[in-house]
C-alpha cells in the first residue's frame, strides 16, 4: 500500500495530492455532450420564443463554466473541514427552503427558486449536497446512534425536515433526497433491522401521499394508459421520440419531436431527444459514461482514508444513480411521470453547478485517498 501525500490536519485548503483524471475526464465529456444536446433540443424553442438558437446552450455553457470552477474549488477544499460546517449548512438549506415555500405561498404560486438577476437559484438543488454532507457527518460523529431506532431518528431529524419542505413543492426531488439519506444510513449502519423498519414506515408514508394527493393519482393514470390519459401527452411524445430513434437514430440534430411536439425537450425529456437522434447506440454510450463515472466514484470511496469521505461519495453516487434511473424510467414510461433531470445533461443552472460541486467533493476525497496498487 502506497500512501499519497495528504493533509491530515483540518486545514481548509488542500495543496497537491492525487488528481483523479478519470473522474475529471468523464465529467467533462458528459457535460460537453450535455451542452450539445441542450443546443440540439432547445434551439427550436429558443427561436420560436424570439431568442437566438444558441440561447439556452450559451446559458448552460456559462453554468458549466461556473460549475467547473466550483468543482475545482471544492476539490481543493479539505472535505473533512466540512464536518465543522454541516449543521450550519443544514440550517441554511432549511431556511432557504422555508423562504421559497413562504414566498411561493404568498404569491399563490408554486415557486421553487430565488430570483438572482436572470438566474433562478433552486434551493432544493442546493439541499441535495448539504444533505449528503450532513448525513455523512452525522453517521461518523454519531455512529453509536446507528444502533438504535431512536438514534437513527435523531440522525435523520433535520434531513427529514428538509425533505418535508422539499416534498411540499417537489415530490421527485424529495424522493431523490430520501434515497440519499437511506443509502448513507445503509452503508453506515452496522445492522439493518432498524433501517428496514424505518424503510417500511417511509414507503408506507410515501404510498399514502401518492394515494391521497389527487394529481399524483392522475400521474398513475398517465403511466398506465399514456395513449388515452389526458396527462399522458408528454409521456406519449417521449415514447414517440425514443421509438423513432431505432438503433442508430435520426442523426445528431435531426430530432423532429423536439420541434414543439415534446414538452421539456431540453430539460426533463432531453434523454428522449438523445434516443431519437442517436438511437439505442447513443443511449447506451450515454448510460455507459454514467456507469463508468459511478464506478469510478465507488473506486474513490473504497480508497477513502476515512468513513466521512466514503459516506459523502455514497451520497453522490446515490444522487446521480437515482436521477439517472428515475429520469430514464420516466421517459421510457417504466415508472409514473415525475420531474427529475438527467444529471449533467438536462438544462438547468443550479442543478448543473451543484452537481459539479458534488463531483468536486469526490475529487477532494480522492486527493487524500490511499491507492492500492
Amino acid at each position, binding site marked *: 500500500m502506497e500512501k499519497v501525500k495528504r493533509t491530515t490536519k483540518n486545514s481548509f485548503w488542500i495543496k497537491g495530492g492525487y488528481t483523479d483524471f478519470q473522474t475529471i475526464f468523464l465529467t467533462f465529456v458528459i457535460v460537453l455532450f450535455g451542452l450539445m444536446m441542450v443546443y440540439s433540443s432547445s434551439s427550436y424553442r429558443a427561436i420560436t420564443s424570439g431568442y437566438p438558437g444558441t440561447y439556452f446552450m450559451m446559458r448552460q455553457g456559462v453554468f458549466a463554466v461556473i460549475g467547473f470552477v466550483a468543482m475545482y474549488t471544492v476539490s481543493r477544499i479539505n472535505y473533512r473541514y466540512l464536518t465543522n460546517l454541516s449543521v450550519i449548512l443544514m440550517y441554511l438549506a432549511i431556511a432557504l427552503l422555508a423562504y421559497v415555500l413562504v414566498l411561493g405561498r404568498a404569491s399563490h404560486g408554486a415557486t421553487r427558486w430565488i430570483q438572482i438577476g436572470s438566474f433562478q437559484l433552486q434551493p432544493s438543488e442546493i439541499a441535495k449536497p448539504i444533505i449528503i454532507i450532513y448525513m455523512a457527518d452525522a453517521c461518523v460523529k454519531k455512529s453509536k446512534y446507528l444502533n438504535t431506532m431512536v438514534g437513527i431518528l435523531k440522525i435523520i431529524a433535520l434531513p427529514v425536515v428538509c425533505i418535508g419542505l422539499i416534498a411540499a413543492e417537489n415530490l421527485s426531488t424529495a424522493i431523490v433526497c430520501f434515497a440519499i439519506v437511506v443509502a448513507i444510513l445503509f452503508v453506515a449502519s452496522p445492522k439493518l433491522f432498524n433501517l428496514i423498519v424505518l424503510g417500511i414506515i417511509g414507503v408506507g408514508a410515501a404510498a399514502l401521499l401518492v394515494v391521497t394527493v389527487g394529481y399524483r393519482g392522475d400521474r398513475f393514470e398517465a403511466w398506465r394508459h399514456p395513449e388515452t390519459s389526458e396527462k399522458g401527452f408528454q409521456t406519449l411524445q417521449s*415514447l414517440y421520440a425514443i421509438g423513432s430513434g431505432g438503433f442508430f437514430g435520426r442523426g445528431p440534430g435531426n430530432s423532429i419531436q423536439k420541434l414543439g411536439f415534446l414538452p421539456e425537450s431540453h430539460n426533463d425529456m432531453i434523454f428522449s431527444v438523445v434516443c431519437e437522434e442517436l438511437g439505442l447506440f447513443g443511449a447506451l454510450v450515454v448510460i455507459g459514461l454514467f456507469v463508468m463515472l459511478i464506478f469510478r466514484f465507488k473506486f474513490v470511496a473504497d480508497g477513502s482514508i476515512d468513513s466521512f469521505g466514503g459516506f459523502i461519495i455514497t451520497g453522490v453516487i446515490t444522487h446521480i444513480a437515482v436521477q439517472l434511473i428515475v429520469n430514464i424510467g420516466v421517459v421510457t414510461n417504466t415508472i409514473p411521470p415525475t420531474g427529475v433531470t438527467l444529471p449533467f445533461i438536462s438544462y438547468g443552472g443550479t442543478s448543473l453547478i451543484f452537481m459539479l460541486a458534488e463531483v468536486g467533493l469526490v475529487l477532494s476525497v480522492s486527493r487524500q485517498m490511499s491507492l492500492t496498487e
Partner: protein
Amino acid sequence: MNVFTHHNKLRLLQIFVIAMLLVSIMIGRLFYIMVFKSKYYGDKAVALQERERSIKAPRGLIYDRNGVIIAGNKAVCSISVIHSQITDEEAVISELSKRLDMDESVIRKKVEKVSSREKIKSNVDKEIADEIRDLDLDGVMIDDDYKRYYPYSELASKVIGFTGADNQGIVGIEVFYDDVLMGTNGSINTLTDAKGIEIPGAAEERVEPVPGDNLVLTLDVNIQMYIEQAAMKVMQEKNANRVCIIVMNPQNGEIYGMADVPEYNLNDPFTYNRDDIDEADVTQDDLNNMWRNFCINDTYEPGSTFKIVTATSAFEEGVVSIDDTFYCPGYKLVGDRRIKCHKTVGHGAETFKQGIMNSCNPVFMEVGARVGAENFYKNMEKLGLFEKTGVDLPGEAGSIFHKLENVGEVELATMSFGQSFQITPLQLMRAVSAVINGGTLVTPHFGKYITDDNNNIISELKYNTKSGVIDTETSETMKYLLEAVISEGTGKNAYLEGYSIGGKTATSEKLPRSSNKYISSFIGFSPAQNPTVLTLILIDEPEGIYYGGTIAAPVVGDIYSNILPYLGIEKEEVEDSE
C-alpha cells in the same frame, strides 16, 4: 479516525449492484422500445409529424355516345395563406382583396392569424389564380382543384346526377359509376413541426394523382335534347305535372334518351326547379323529389300499354288467335262485378286484332281469363316484370303485384288491361322490348365504354341478356298487331309518313279512381318489323283531354319524325294496309 470499513465498502458495493440492476432494467426497456416497438412508435410519430398535402385527382368525364362531353371538370384553385411565410402583409392583403373581390378586413383577419394555414377562398377561377400566382407573393399558396361542370346544365339531369363537395357522386350515373369516375388523389407528404410548418430540407414524398376513368354513355345528346323539348312542350300544353320519355334500342337495351321533365340544373342542384313552393320553404324532401327519376324510381299502373303483355301471354299459351271473334257490350261481368270498357256503348263484335286496335277491355279480360292467373304470372316473369331491370342507375324501384294465390277473377281481369299492380316505366320498356325483338330480355343501360385519359377504350360494359323468353312467332304476331294499332287503331296519331311504327296507347286513371287524375301514355317502336327504337311517353296528370291516343301518341310521332332520320333509319315503302 473512522475508517471506511470493509463492512461499509460491502454495503456500497450492494448499492452499486442494485443501481446497476436498475440501470439494466432501463436498458432493457430502451431495447424494447427502440427495437421491438420502434416501428409502432415510429409510425405513430410520423403520423403526428407528417402533413399530407393532397393533390386532387380529376374526376373522369362523362361522354354521350358520340363523344360529346356531358360532365366535365372545371379547373379551379383554392387560395390560402401561411402566416409565418408572409413577408409583406399589406401587399398580400391588398392584392388578394382586389383580385378575389373580398373585403380587406376579412382577408386581414386571416393573414394576421397565427396558424399553419388559413384558407382565403376556394373555387377561384384559374385565370384569377394564375394572376395571383404571377405576383409571386410570399406566404400565398395556390392549390389546384377541380369542380364538376355540366356544359348542358339541365340535360338528362335525372340520369346524370351530380357530385358533392369532394367530387363524389351523389345521385344518378355520377354515383352509380363513382368507382370508375373517381380518381385517386395524390399527395405530398412532408414532415412538419408541431405548428405544422414544413421542415426545410426534410424528405418529401410525392404520390401523383391518378385521374378517374371516363365513361361513354349510350345516351345521345341530340335525342335527349329533342325529347326534353317535346316533353316540356306537351307538359306546358297540357299543364301536366310531369312528362317522362324514354327512348331505347329494344334490340340491346341501349338507352338513347331518358327525360323526366321538369329537369333541374346540374350546376346548381340545390335550387328548386318548380315554383309551387317558396324558395325559403324548400325542404330536403322537396330536393330529393326533384332529383328523383320517375322512369326508374317510381311505379305506376301502366294501363292499356300492358295489353301487349296480356296478348303476348295469350299467344304464348296458344289460347287465342288474331282472328278469334269476341263481343263487347261495353262491359264484362266478372263474378259479381260489372267491369266497363272505355267505350261504354261497346265495340260490338270484333276480332282479336280489332280488339287490340280498339284497346277493348272486355276482349282482354276474356283473353286474360283464358290464359289464367298462373300462366299469366309465368309469362310476366319471363318478361322480367317481377325483377328490377338492372339499369345502371341507383335506387331502381321494384314492381308491386298481387301474390299469385290472391289473384281472383276480378284481379286477373283488371290486370289483363293493366290495372291493380304497379311497375316502373322502364320495366314496361324492357318487357315490350322482349316482345318485339324476337324474345330477348335485355338489360336497359346507359354505360357503354370505360375509356382512359386518351379516350382509349379500357373496357366495354357488358349486360345480361336472356334470349328465347318468348317464341319468335309470338313476337312477329305482336309486331304485326301493334303496327295495326298505329296504322288503323287508337295509336293512329303516332302515324308517320314513310315509317312503319308499332305501338300501344294507354290512359290510366290514377288512384284513387275518383280523383279523375290520369297518366296518358304511349309506347311505340319503329321500324315495325325490325324495331331499333322503342319510345315510351308518360304524361302525368294532363288537364283537358287525357286520352293517350290523343295527346301522347302524337308526341312520339313528332319525336320519330326527327330522330328516325337522325338515327339513319331510312324511309320505307309502306304498303297500304287493308
